[in-house]
């Protein structure tokens, strides 16, 4: 089983992000589970969301205590990051900085991708939550890009051009992260 923690700020869509990830994993024929860390959501406040992906049905229903992967949607959250990520795991940070400049001490690998820049370029707004999963797909190979595209269509397809732009940006993030 792989456990993923996604950190964002209220309104940034960390919860939607974990849902899309769960749908994508399901599209890939896996079992999945996505849930928010049950906060009182407010705009701008730190928000945490979890996702579990497994080949077998998932029984475990507690919080995630040691993640395989972490996705940080806002680099300012790196400063107060105290999630446990497995040694040899991966922390993806939406940042224009270099990994060594990210103030996280962990034996997990840190990768920085400037997702906000791609979002502003293609979507025109700093919507990074969904497209950040492109980096997750490229770097971890846990889910395919095709499954992610399908998941985006399913979750926000009704929003028309926003969905199309998200998919275009998703592909760009995927390419940029490879």
């Amino acid at each position: 089983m792989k456990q993923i923690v996604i950190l964002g700020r209220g309104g940034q869509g960390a919860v939607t992000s974990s849902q899309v990830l769960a749908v994508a994993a399901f599209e890939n024929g896996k079992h999945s589970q996505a849930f928010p860390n049950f906060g009182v959501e407010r705009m701008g406040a730190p928000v945490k969301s979890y996702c579990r992906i497994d080949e077998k049905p998932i029984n475990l229903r507690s919080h995630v205590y040691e993640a395989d992967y972490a996705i940080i949607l806002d680099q300012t959250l790196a400063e107060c990051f105290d999630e446990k990520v497995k040694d040899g795991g991966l922390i993806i940070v939406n940042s224009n900085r270099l990994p060594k400049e990210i103030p996280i001490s962990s034996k997990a690998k840190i990768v920085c991708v400037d997702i906000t820049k791609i979002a502003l370029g293609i979507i025109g707004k700093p919507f990074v939550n969904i497209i950040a999963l492109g980096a997750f797909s490229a770097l971890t190979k846990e889910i395919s890009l095709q499954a992610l595209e399908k998941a985006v269509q399913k979750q926000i397809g009704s929003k028309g051009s926003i969905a199309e732009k998200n998919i275009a940006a998703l592909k760009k993030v995927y390419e940029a992260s490879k």
Partner: protein
Amino acid sequence: MKKQKTKEQAQSGISKTCPGPMVFSKGAVISEPGSTMKYKTGNWRTYKPVIERAKCIKCGICWANCPDAAIKKDSDGTFIVDYDYCKGCLICDKLCPVKAISHGVEQK
């Protein structure tokens, strides 16, 4: 904030939204007034409003409408933003009648 965290908070999984050490007082009463002051929310901000004090006419519209009471009156009667608490909603920017307030993306 990290240092003050008790073992209990660390286990609760919601520690990061709780400022300061956990106090289990009788009846869940907070006996220290103004304790919310310790909970700084400035880092929630995406946009940062900036008041150009030369343009400020001291009308106080920004001060009266700030939902977080994060605008303070300075000694000369003009207004300043308390960035420890400002969440960057930009209501002040929208309401300023003389466009003395502008904003940019917060650089952290």
